[in-house]
């Protein structure tokens, strides 16, 4: 591994914002995500703010509905596994979407 030890090492594991109280269950410190807002910007928003997927902010969608759609997919929307977005991160983005106002250019 000597060849790998260069100046730009291990930029992942950025944020450990989602810390669990105990060490069991989900390994939140493994999460690659910082916040619900970040997940929305880096994943959901690419479609849901671009007219590809429907607008989901500003509709007070229940977080449980959002998490179910994310895990199952729906028609053209892909399903996202726990390895891609862990349960806690998913909950945080679902709450972010549920409580955010509609994008400004939307009615």
């Amino acid at each position: 591994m000597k060849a790998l030890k260069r100046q730009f090492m291990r930029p992942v594991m950025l944020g450990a914002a989602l810390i669990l109280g105990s060490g069991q269950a989900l390994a939140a410190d493994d999460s690659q995500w910082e916040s619900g807002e970040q997940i929305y910007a880096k994943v959901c928003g690419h479609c849901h703010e671009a007219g590809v997927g429907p607008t989901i902010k500003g509709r007070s969608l229940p977080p449980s509905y959002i998490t179910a759609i994310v895990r199952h997919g729906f028609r053209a929307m892909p399903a996202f596994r726990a390895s891609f977005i862990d349960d806690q991160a998913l909950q945080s983005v679902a709450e972010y979407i549920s409580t955010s106002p509609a994008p400004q250019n939307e009615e």
Partner: protein
Amino acid sequence: MSQQTNAVLPQGVTASDFAAAVNKFRALLGEENVLIKGDQLTPYTKIMMPRDVAENTPSAAVTATTVEQVQGVVKICNEYKIPVWTISTGNNFGYGSAAPGQRGQVILDLKKMNKIINIDPDLCTALVEPGVTYQQLYDYLEENNIPLMLSFSAPSAIAGPVGNTMDRGVGYTPYGEHFLMQCGMEMVMANGDVYRTGMGGVEGDNAWQVFKWGYGPTLDGMFTQANYGICTKMGFWLMPKPPVSKPFEIRFENDTDIAEIVEFIRPLRIAQVIPNAVVIAGLLWEAATCNTRRAEYTSEPGATPEHILKQIQKDKKLGAWNLYACLYGTQEQVEVNWNIVQGALKQLGKGTLITEKEAGGTEPFDYRAKLMTGVPNLQEFGLYNWRGGGGSMWFAPVSQARGSECDKQYALAKDILNKHGLDYVGEFIVGWRDMHHVIDVLYDRTNDEERARAEACFNELLDEFEKRGYAVYRVNTQFQDRVAQSYGTTKRRVEHAIKRALDPNNILAPGKSGIDLENDF
């Protein structure tokens, strides 16, 4: 400890052996990284192919985070003869998504192996793990102010370089032939050995990411679209971000223009005047990616009538063919090449040039410009809204970059699609001398009748193209054995001989590209 599984077993594995293997997976990986319940596995079964989900349902999914864990998984699979289907980001849409190729296979999900191990800004190389996404790489380059440019496929934000390159996917920059830019793989072999290609086996080496060939046989290509090993690290080259990028479009009015367009573009592409993987997108590809839905124009089932296609072309100000290319370099270099392009177009005598200025931030120009300059987005998923219903299969025959060939393939594909009540939604991606003729066979997967039509259509496309000497470069897992047939028996015998030598227990992704020791080769 819950034993409530989704009641699917790997082929030929008893329930008791499977339970024993699951216990060993848990001991190796931890309870939370061994998924066997139906609801945990649901996201792995969202497919876009027409066949029943049941045919692609896994028995379990396990997630590994280290090379040692991958070795451990392989060891357990060998012990119990359990087939394991490896995925990286799991977003191979239209080619099988995250689902295993065969029912009952255990998924080895490497999404959590997501380290960007090294970016070398001097040599412009990267070394990454399988779970790294292009968005993650892009953010890293931006945050660290590293002037390098990515090349990626359209699902860039959520897909990644290892999976895309291992499946020989392509992108839209001068580095768009991704396997060509790959440099150094680390493979966990079926016997648990860790094999590094190229210079990677040399103690103390630091040239793994800069020299591909190493010494003796160069085996990297053998591992792509294959099931001879599990890639746990991959190196690749990155293009220095040029001081100037000039994306542009040339819009052509008639679908009969395709032959002339190809003849116009080929010399510019081969001579590298235009250095990137040029795209020639058909009307409906363009319409869908600027968020046009078929339902806005008609509720009639079947192929969309020509008069509606013309109306869409007019309403949305699109070409029947829309060529996208980009020039890169200093201002002076770009100007020289721009003049050459303009001169060639003048000689052609048709086509309207559009630059960023004329496009004014509108789609689909905007997302095309982003794809050609390495900015992640998901705008192309608009394709899935054209008909809606989540059905998509890529039919991607290879063609010479020759006008007459492209014309012939286009006409044949459109006839077959329309006959089955589906639309031609396609583009040509121009390699150096080849075309990836990429057609999205879009259908409503929630409609059983349409699903059956799409399946019949895909079979006919494969058959009729094969009769004329054409074959696809990649296909979804439903048709992987069928496509292997197109390439001939000798190739299959060689591939199966390698499989027997490297993976005698047939544990690594049996069925991938038609390679499965259950076959009679």
